[in-house]
């Protein structure tokens, strides 16, 4: 992954981050909105994956974004190039605090001019994804659906799944790979199809 990572953040993007951090510290509300647009999805992705609870993730993503924006307004991030690491650290702390104490840490005094992190369009988009995901799993053969369930929900390895389903482990691996690629392509939809097919090609190399 290292070679992939090296190219993942260009110099231009680093400069954008620096401009964004400075603008938020200077009170630019549009920059805050840009910040939410950039980080809301990865924060949500991380919270869903680590908590495996979408409702909790929806609550905690607000806490993360609010805490991050408040900290940026106060100018607490001294190295703007580390914006992503900064947001990630807040997200991990927020989730770990919740899991340790089973309670959310809510700021006592919330600034009243924070950007809306739970917009209606985001909710609609999320529902759309859910609908496509349901269609995608419905389109799978029962065996492939079983394999994905045992992989993604039960966290079992192909060898264990093979034993449970009385199959050859190589068959499980192949079917899992094909099914995963298929559902990802179906969920991402036509707008992402170019990216998805590119990924499959790269992965098959």
């Amino acid at each position, binding site marked *: 992954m290292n070679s992939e990572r090296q190219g993942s*953040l*260009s110099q231009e993007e680093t400069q954008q981050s620096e401009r964004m951090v400075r603008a938020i510290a200077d009170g630019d509300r549009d920059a805050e909105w840009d910040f939410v647009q950039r980080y809301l999805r990865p924060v949500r992705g991380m919270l869903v994956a680590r908590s495996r609870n979408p409702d909790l993730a929806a609550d905690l993503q607000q806490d993360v974004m609010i805490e991050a924006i408040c900290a940026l307004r106060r100018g607490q991030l001294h190295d703007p190039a580390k914006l992503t690491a900064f947001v990630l650290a807040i997200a991990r702390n927020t989730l770990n605090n919740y899991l340790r104490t089973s309670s959310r840490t809510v700021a006592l005094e919330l600034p009243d001019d924070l950007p809306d992190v739970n917009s209606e369009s985001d909710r609609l988009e999320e529902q759309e994804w859910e609908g496509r995901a349901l269609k995608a799993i419905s389109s799978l053969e029962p065996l492939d659906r079983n394999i994905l369930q045992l992989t993604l929900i039960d966290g079992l390895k192909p060898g264990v799944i093979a034993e449970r389903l009385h199959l050859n482990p190589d068959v499980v691996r192949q079917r899992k790979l094909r099914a995963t690629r298929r559902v990802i392509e179906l969920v991402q939809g036509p707008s992402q199809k170019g990216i998805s097919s590119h990924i499959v090609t790269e992965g098959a190399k």
Partner: protein
Amino acid sequence: MSHCTGAPAEQLAEQYVAGTLPDSESRAFEEHYFDCPVCLAQLQALEAVALQIHRNPVKIPGRVIAWPAIVGAIGAIAALLLIAVIGYRDFARRAANAKNPGASSSPVEKSKPSSTSAISQLADLSLPPFEVSSLRGEGVNRNFSAGMKAYASGDCAAAVRELARVPAGSADALTAQLYSGVCQMKLNQLAAAATILDGVVGKGDSPQQEAALYYRAQIALLRSDAAGARHNLEMVVSLHGDFEERARTELSKLPADRSEN
């Protein structure tokens, strides 16, 4: 502009979503996809799929390949023959014992699972009892009370919601954490359950420590992690508390210590 082709997500997203990716790799993957729209899109798609599978689970049979009728018929005949042979041998053994009552019968061997999938079947998913009447009077937290009532009625989802609102510093916080972890386990949120119960264990000596270790072991069993289960069960045994006997029973059923898959 990102130059990533999506290979990191292709390699790691599945384990990451399943909660089985080691923490160091999870962190590295997070640092990557936070700045990589290609991998983020793949991850989100997989999360959406996992969510729908979780909401619409299918019952997974032991064997999913449909056997031809002829094979089924042969199997039935073989089963009848086997029953007849076992029945005859049992009859013969009883007859021999009746003739020679002093002879001891062969000791019953405890069956030990030889496969990792059988390990998960050892997991004890029964919820620890909690009497609602045992809640203290006026001092008890309102959310804790509501959470434990939901728990006592078997509504784990509601229990988790209410127990999450119990203030961290309150007298009931650790108990709330324990039952919240057990409920998450019951709801098959194994990663979250493990983290919550680790938090209880990490608090050290407490009335909840033993139960937390025991249910931490059950999560390891569900994940077919025999080494993790053994470690936690041995700690339960060392505490000599209410769960000692159950822990000993489970330890006796675990396969001999060897490297995991």
